[in-house]
C-alpha cells in the first residue's frame, strides 16, 4: 500500500472518531436530561482496508440497571460515512453519518438504443439535509436527523424501558 493510501485511510478513521465523539457529547447531554448515567468504554474495530483501531463506546444505565450501549460499528459502511449502533436489551438501531444530501443516484435514459445522461441526480434516501447522524425509519425508509427527541424514542425502542 502506498504511503498516500495509508494516510488517507488513517484520516478516514480520525474523521470517523471525531464524528463519533461529537455524537457522544450530544448523547451525554440528552442522557443527563433524562436522568441516565453514561460511562465510556472502548472497543477494537477491524475493518477491511483500514488499520485496526480502538473506538469509544457508551454504556447507558439508570439506578444500576443497564439500558443500552452505543457501539461504534465502523467508518466504512455502505451508503453512509460511518455507523454507530444503539443496542438495547431487545433491539438494535443503526445510526448513520451522512454528508450533504447523502448518497445520490444519477438517472440515465436510452434514446434510439444509446444511453444518455437523464438529468440531475436525486438523493437515494429522502430526508437527509446537512452533515450529521441519521436514523432510517424502517417502513418508509426516510432518514431522520438524530436529535434529543428521536434519541429518547430510539432508547425506549431498543430497551423497552420506561424512561419517565
Amino acid at each position, binding site marked *: 500500500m502506498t504511503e498516500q493510501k495509508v494516510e488517507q485511510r488513517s484520516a478516514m478513521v480520525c474523521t470517523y472518531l471525531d464524528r463519533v465523539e461529537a455524537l457522544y457529547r450530544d448523547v451525554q447531554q440528552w442522557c443527563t436530561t433524562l436522568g441516565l448515567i453514561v460511562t465510556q468504554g472502548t472497543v477494537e474495530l*477491524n*475493518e*477491511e482496508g483500514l488499520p485496526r483501531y480502538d473506538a469509544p463506546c457508551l454504556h447507558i444505565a439508570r439506578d444500576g440497571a443497564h439500558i443500552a450501549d452505543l457501539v461504534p460499528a465502523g467508518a466504512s459502511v455502505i451508503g453512509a460515512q460511518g455507523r454507530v449502533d444503539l*443496542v438495547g436489551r431487545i433491539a438494535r438501531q*443503526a445510526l448513520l453519518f451522512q454528508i450533504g444530501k447523502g448518497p445520490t443516484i444519477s438517472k440515465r435514459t436510452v434514446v434510439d438504443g444509446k444511453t444518455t445522461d437523464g438529468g440531475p441526480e436525486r438523493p437515494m*434516501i429522502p430526508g437527509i439535509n446537512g452533515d450529521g447522524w441519521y436514523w432510517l425509519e424502517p417502513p418508509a*425508509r426516510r432518514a431522520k436527523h438524530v436529535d434529543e427527541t428521536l434519541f429518547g424514542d430510539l432508547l425506549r425502542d431498543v430497551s423497552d424501558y420506561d424512561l419517565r
Partner: protein
Amino acid sequence: MIFGNPLQPIYDAFVVANDCFKVAVRAAKGQETHLLGRTQFFGATSTEAETAVLDASNQASDLVILALFATFERWVIEHLQGASGLIAGGYPVDYSASLANKFEKAVERWRVEEVLDLFKVEVDQQLIMQAKQIKKYRDWIAHRNPQKALPPKATPEVTFDVLSDLIEQIRTTHAPSPLAASA
C-alpha cells in the same frame, strides 16, 4: 416504491418480524399467559425473553440481507436470460436455438460481480459499486470468519434501497422504447 418490486415482500416481512419481536417481549415480561401458550416465552424470565428476542432480531437483520441479495441475483439472472430470445432469432435457426439454450444455462453460473458490470453504462455507477459491496458483506455474513476483517457493513434498509433502485434503473433503461416497438 417501484411497481412489482420482487424485494418488497422480503423487506416488509422483516419489518413485521421486528414488530412481532417487540410485542413478544412485552407479552413475556407481563407473563400474559393467554398470549404465551405453546411458545418458549411461557414461564421465561424477562432476561431470558429479552436475550432470545435480541438474538433473533440480530439474526433477522443478517438473514434479510441474504434473502434480499439472493432474490436480486435471481431477478438479474432471469433478466439476462430474457436476451436468449435475441440469440434464438439468429441464423441458421437450429444453431441459434442451441446457442440460445447454452447461453441460458451458462448465465446461471456467471459471477454476479461480472454480471453487474454489464449494466455499467445504463445504470448509476455508484449503485453498481454499492451492490458489489453488499455482495461482499453478504458473503461475510454467510461465512463469518472472525479472522477476516469486516468488509463495509450494510443495513437492511440501505440494502433494500440500493438493490431496488438498481432493479428500477435496469427495468427503465432496458424497456424497449414505444417508437422502436412500433417500427
